[in-house]
């Protein structure tokens, strides 16, 4: 077996040194009755070339991967420059562990430090940690963190327009920690939370969490929400699931977020069927010691040379155990590297251009759909590269028909919003060419009428 270098001869010598006769003896601490007598019921071993074919076949079975894709909803297909993946293949990065030994981990440490910097700048927040598993767990941990800051309060307020997976994950995480989760109702006209619902933010409110822009692609009234939250001393938590937007639009820090979390998948990571993505976690400086996750800091070594280390570990599980700010240990390390590379390569102008290009194509598509099909704009508010339309019939059925024509038309909202049975959320990125958009609209018109 090519990964097992010990030869029979060497095994003999090693057993001799140990002072036993067979490898089986090494397993004598295991009770006889649980020792396996037979091979496991697994497929038979495969050679590399057979594996290579097998995996190619499986990949080919994913016919959706080649279809025209207008799905978003927390996972976005953007173009990632080829340089990124080639640098990710540098084994010094991907075959290393968490940078516990700073002397031989400065590459990882510095790259995380720069990631922390770039995400902080992008979010306009003071500090950012070394990553969370994904946007949903980042959101959940943000709520938990807020509950530790606002220790006496009982209620976390969450906008009903937040990604349903995020809400569900928050519910799971909050279950035994926070007394009440209050979900703010959706305004069916604007596609944002009802203004009247904001009165539910009160002096018992731990935090208000909303998505920017929200799950339907609509822009909440971020200033208003923030203002009311602050008036009630509730923490403002903004969740950004489509971070390329920040190339052209104001950042959570601009509207006073205390904590900003994100799903950074759209910054250079492939959809990968939903993972690995990258949860980002940023906060105001004063909350650092309550933050979950790892942090890299700058320091000097014993000769005064500037360098980087993992720091503020006293918050973490390996030191604080059950009193830690979180249980997180391994996070999404390599993804922070990829995102750092993406942000370096795109830079301030590239990210802005991507954002504007997305916006412009969204606008073109939305207008065209409204003009040339029987679909109408579902909500008055729409902001970036995602929008929701109302179809004259069940959205899932229409999407299924579109799929048969090779187009993944969007996300039908029926699953999580039964009242929005005919609503379809559509996403456009720079990967969707104008021809592709035109052909979408044409196909849609054929199905639902033009």
């Amino acid at each position, binding site marked *: *077996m090519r990964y*097992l270098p*010990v030869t029979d001869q060497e095994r003999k010598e090693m057993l001799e040194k140990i*002072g036993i006769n067979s*490898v089986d003896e090494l397993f004598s601490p295991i009770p006889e009755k649980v020792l*396996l007598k037979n091979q*496991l019921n*697994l*497929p038979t*071993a*495969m050679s590399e070339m057979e594996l290579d074919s097998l995996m190619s076949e*499986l990949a080919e079975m*994913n*016919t*959706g*991967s080649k*279809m025209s894709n207008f799905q978003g909803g927390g*996972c976005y297909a953007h173009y990632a*420059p080829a340089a990124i993946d080639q640098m990710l293949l540098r084994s010094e990065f991907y*075959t290393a562990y*968490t*940078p516990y*030994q*700073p002397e031989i981990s*400065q590459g990882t440490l*510095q*790259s995380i*430090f720069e990631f*922390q*910097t*770039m995400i902080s*700048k992008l979010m306009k927040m*003071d*500090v950012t940690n070394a990553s969370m598993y994904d946007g949903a767990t980042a959101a959940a941990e943000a709520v938990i963190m807020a509950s530790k800051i606002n220790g006496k309060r009982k209620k976390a307020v969450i906008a009903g327009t937040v990604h349903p*997976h995020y809400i569900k994950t928050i519910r799971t995480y909050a279950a*035994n920690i926070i007394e009440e989760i209050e979900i703010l109702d959706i305004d069916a006209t604007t596609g944002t939370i009802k203004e009247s619902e904001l009165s539910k933010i009160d002096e018992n409110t731990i935090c208000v969490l909303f998505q920017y822009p929200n799950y339907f692609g609509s822009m909440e009234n971020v*200033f208003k929400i923030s203002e009311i939250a602050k008036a009630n001393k509730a923490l403002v938590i903004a969740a950004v699931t489509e971070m390329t937007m920040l190339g*052209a639009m104001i950042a959570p820090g601009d509207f006073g977020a205390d904590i900003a979390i994100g799903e950074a998948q759209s910054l250079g990571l492939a*959809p*990968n*069927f939903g*993972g690995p*993505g990258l949860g980002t976690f940023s906060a105001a400086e004063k909350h650092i010691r309550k933050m979950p996750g790892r942090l890299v*800091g700058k*320091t000097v070594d014993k000769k005064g040379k500037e360098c980087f*280390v993992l720091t503020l570990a006293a918050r973490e599980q390996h030191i604080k155990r059950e009193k*830690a700010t979180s249980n*997180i240990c391994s996070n*999404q*390390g*390599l993804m922070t*590297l990829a995102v750092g*590379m993406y*942000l370096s390569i795109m*830079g301030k102008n*590239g990210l802005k*251009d991507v954002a*504007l290009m997305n916006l412009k194509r969204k606008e073109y598509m939305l207008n065209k759909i409204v003009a040339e099909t029987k679909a109408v704009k579902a909500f008055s508010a729409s902001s970036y590269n995602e929008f929701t339309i109302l179809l004259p019939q069940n959205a899932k059925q229409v999407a299924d028909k579109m*799929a048969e024509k090779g187009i*993944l038309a969007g996300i039908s909202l029926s699953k999580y919003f039964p009242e929005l049975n005919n609503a379809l959320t559509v996403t456009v990125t720079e990967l969707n060419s104008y021809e592709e958009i035109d052909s979408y609209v044409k196909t849609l018109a054929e199905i639902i009428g033009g």
Partner: protein
Amino acid sequence: MRYPGIKDLKLAEGSIYDRSKPGRKGYSLPLENLENAENLIPEEMRRKELDLPEVSELDAVRHYTRLSTYNFGLDGGFYPLGSCTMKYNPKINEKVARLKGFTNLHPETPEKYAQGTLKLMYELQNMLAEIGGFAGTTLNPAAGAHGEYTGIGIIKAYHESRKDFKRTKVIIPDSAHGTNPASCAMHGYDVVVLKSNEKGKVCLSALKELLNDEIAAMMLTNPNTLGVFESEICEITKLVHDAGALVYGDGANMNAILGVARPGDMGIDVLHYNLHKTFSTPHGGGGPGSGPVCVVEKLTKFLPNPVVVKNGENYIFNENNESMGMVRSFYGNVGVCLKAYTYIREMGKEHIREIAENAVLNANYIKASLSDIYNVEYPEGTLHETVFDDSKMPNDVTTLDIAKALIDRGYHPPTIYFPLIVHGAIMVEPTENESKDDIDAFIFAMREIYEKSINDPENIKNAPLVTSVSRPDETTAARKPILTQCTTCIS
């Protein structure tokens, strides 16, 4: 003004912001007139500035290429980091996981058009269940700790489904990894610490004393963090079950018993794997990992949503009403699962046991070769890793010194100061991928460090001597944390 300077072939590199110049471009986008696009954004929502670097593609490539050379990777050398199972990351895994058919697949794609990945996930669920001796699997958790969180959540859902709300505590041995208590705390459980006995193992009578109807579960790592197998595992699980609690298995050390024995057969009810340990997916400098959780039959309905099931010839997602809920968005770190799947298929039923055999052989060989000079506090029943300590070191040479001296000799240090029950622990896990020659060279280095500790202790205490960074000041780093680059400062 400074030229980069060179330390052998390691070129100096500053911050990526140091390479930035206004107007420099590293990106390439289709030509499109974006002049008025900003008008689509309401004035008050328009971003006024964005402090990201402006560099060329070559700038970025040089920057990250140089940074990479400041890292020690497993492809470069021996990485016996105990508990982390730093095994070789096969290159075929990296290749196939990059097939566009996998990477381009959007998670909201109707199942019909995602059959390749769904089939793979389904089969991986089953293979992991078979390897551990369980009935059901979730691939959702993103890492080991996330798996613990999920597994404990399943246990909680189980008790609650039985309307048993009294159980508010979890028993955890003092040798456990920090994530174990932390994961319990995140579910609101109180942690009851079980002191290990003189053999570093669970003491049955001590356990018995802690068990009562307030105990929801016991968490156990087996082999434990000393690399020692809990021989009384069947008695332990029986005791816990008799008290109405469940047993959670931390599968971080599954590499020791692959194909040799199965936690499910020992009475473990819930187990998480670390695919990034046992199943060869890269650690990536701290992730992404994957921490699937397996459960016994009666717990399958509590698995987080969704799970992949087979429906006739098709693979589809299934949601369960009694599920503990969702633990993240979508379905897990699928890109990582792909690599583990590839690895298991390569090994197959024929070779999977050899992994454990070789891992355990290597660890025991190291123990046998070094225990004359390095103390092993708990020498009995070692499987895949062995924990030395610095108690017999001359001239006050400490574990930290030994670790740093290993760097000078071309090794990534072992895990140190963990588990906490061994003072000055040095936890060596060679894995099955290292050859006897490479292990012998490591043994030689360890012995030489010991000798130098006698004859020239300063050499060891000042280590590492050859790296350009040595012993960073961690205290100041924590006291006055600098967590972002000041881009307006002059460097």
